[in-house]
C-alpha cells in the first residue's frame, strides 16, 4: 500500500509543486492521475520512487517511510518499482536486448535467468523479433513499448508510468493502456499519469485529479 500524508513539495525558487497531498493506493490497484501539465503529476510520481524528495509530509510504501529514506537505501526501493519515463530514458549506445538487461544486471541476476526474462518482457510488448536492433531504429510507439519492457522485466510490485501515451495516436494509446491493464490483472499496482481525458472515458479505475499541486476531491 502506498500512502501520502500531508505531502508538500516546494522548490527553492518558491514554486509549490505539491500542496498538502493526502491519498492512499491499495496493493493491486490501478489508478489514473490527471491534470494539466504543471499540475504536479510528475512530481507526485517521482516522489514515490524517491527521485523527488518532499519538503514535508510522509510517504509510505508497505509501511516504510520513503521521505526519510537514507540515500544508500534508495536503490533497493527503486528495484521494487518499475518506471516508464516520460522521456523514455533509453540508452542509444546498446541494443534493445541490452537496454532491457540493465535492470537485471543491477539486481545481480545470473546471465541465463536474465536472458530468458528479457525475452519474456520483449514478448509481452511485441518486440521479441527486434532484440538485436538499436533503439534509434524504433518508432515512437516502439520506443514506448521498449521503455515498458524495461520497467517490468524485473517483475516489480509497483509500476509507475508518466504520460505513457503522450505523443501516440489513439489506437496505439489504447494498445498501451491494454498492456497496463493486463499487468494490473496479474497483481501489479499500476499508477498512470495522463492529461488525455479521452483515454479515461470508459475506465472503471479510480481517477485522481491534480490542479496546481492540490488533489481535487
Amino acid at each position, binding site marked *: 500500500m502506498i500512502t501520502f500524508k500531508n505531502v508538500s513539495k516546494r522548490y527553492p525558487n518558491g514554486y509549490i509543486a505539491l500542496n498538502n497531498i493526502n491519498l492512499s493506493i491499495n496493493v493491486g490497484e490501478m489508478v489514473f492521475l490527471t491534470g494539466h501539465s504543471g499540475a504536479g503529476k510528475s512530481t507526485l510520481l517521482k516522489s514515490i520512487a524517491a527521485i523527488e524528495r518532499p519538503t514535508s509530509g510522509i510517504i509510505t510504501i508497505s509501511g516504510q517511510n520513503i521521505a526519510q529514506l537514507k540515500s544508500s537505501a534508495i536503490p533497493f526501493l527503486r528495484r521494487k518499482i518499475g518506471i516508464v519515463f516520460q522521456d523514455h530514458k533509453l*540508452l542509444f549506445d546498446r541494443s534493445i536486448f541490452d537496454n532491457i538487461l540493465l535492470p537485471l544486471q*543491477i539486481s545481480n541476476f545470473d*546471465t541465463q535467468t536474465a536472458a530468458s526474462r528479457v525475452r519474456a518482457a520483449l514478448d509481452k510488448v511485441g518486440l521479441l523479433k527486434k532484440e538485436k536492433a538499436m533503439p534509434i531504429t524504433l518508432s515512437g510507439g516502439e520506443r514506448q513499448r521498449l521503455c515498458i519492457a524495461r520497467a517490468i522485466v524485473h517483475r516489480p510490485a509497483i509500476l509507475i508510468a508518466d504520460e505513457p501515451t503522450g505523443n501516440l495516436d489513439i489506437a496505439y494509446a489504447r494498445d498501451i493502456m491494454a498492456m497496463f491493464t493486463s499487468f494490473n490483472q496479474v497483481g501489479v499496482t499500476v499508477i498512470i499519469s495522463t492529461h488525455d481525458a479521452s483515454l479515461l472515458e470508459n475506465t472503471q479505475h479510480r481517477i485522481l485529479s491534480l490542479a496546481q499541486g492540490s488533489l481535487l476531491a
Partner: protein
Amino acid sequence: MIRVWLAQHWFVFMATFKRLLATPITSLLSVIIMGVALSVPVSIYVLVENLQAIANERNSPQMSIFLRNDAKQADVDRIRQDLEQNPQIIELEFVTKDVALQQLLEKSELPDIAMNLPRNPLPDAFVITLNENALENLKQLQEDLKGKPEIKYVQFDSAWIERFSALLELGHSIILMITMISSIAIIAVMFNTIRLQIATKHDEIEISKLIGATDSFIRRPFLYFGALQGLAAGAIAWLIVLLLIHLINEQLIVFLRFYEMEFLLGSLSTENGLSLLFFSTWLGWLGARLSVSNHLWRIEPQ
C-alpha cells in the same frame, strides 16, 4: 550467489576491456604517458641496485686485527673465541706471522731484503669479514677491539664505506621523491581520463541510478578501467627499463673490452617487476576512485 557475483564482475571486466580496445589510440596514449612517468624512478632504482651489488661484491667490509708481537697462543685462542661469538662477523681468517711473511716474500719485489731480515717483523693477524648490517656499529667494534691488551692495531677503511652508504641513501631518497612525483602524475592522468569518461557516460549513469543501481555498481566499470590502465602503464614501464638496461649493456660490452673486462648490469628482477605492476594497478585504481567519488555525486537524476 558468489558465482553470480563473480559473473557480474567478469562481465564488467570484459566490457571495460572492450571499451579500452574500442579507443586504442586514446587508451594507448594515456597508458604511455603513465608508463614513461613510472619508468623514471624504476630505472634509477635499477641503476642504484646495480651500484650496490657492485659495491657489495668487491668491497665486503673487512677489518684487519693485528696482535701484539709477543702474543701467546692462549691470547690468540681467547681473541678467536671472542670474535667467533660476534654475530656481525660472517668470516674469520687467522693469518700467522709465518704465513704473512711468506705472502710478503711472494709479492715483494725485493725478496732479498725480506729474506735477510734478522727475524720476522710481522705480527699474527685476524682478517674478519663483516655483514652489511654491521656498518652502523663499526666504530664501536673498532673501539672495543682496540681496547684489548693483546691487540696492537685495528685497521679498517671506514671512510670509504660510510661515504658510499651515504651515497646509496641519497639515491634511495631521490628514488622515493621521484616515485611520489610520478605517482601524482599518474593519479592526475587517471583522474582526468575518468572525468571525461563520466561525462560521456552521463546518460547511462543517470538511468542506472533511476532503476536502482547502487553507487558501487556504477563505480565498478570506472575502477576496472583505472586498474587496467594502471596495469598496462606498469607493463610499459617494465618494458622501458628492460630496453634501457639492454641498450646500456650493449654499450658497456664495447667499452669494457678496452679494459679486458666483462660486466653486465642486472635488470629489474621478476619479483620487483611484479611489485611494479601491482603498484601501478593500484595507482590507476586510486586515480579512478578519486575521480569517480569527485564527479559521480553531481549526476543526480531529475
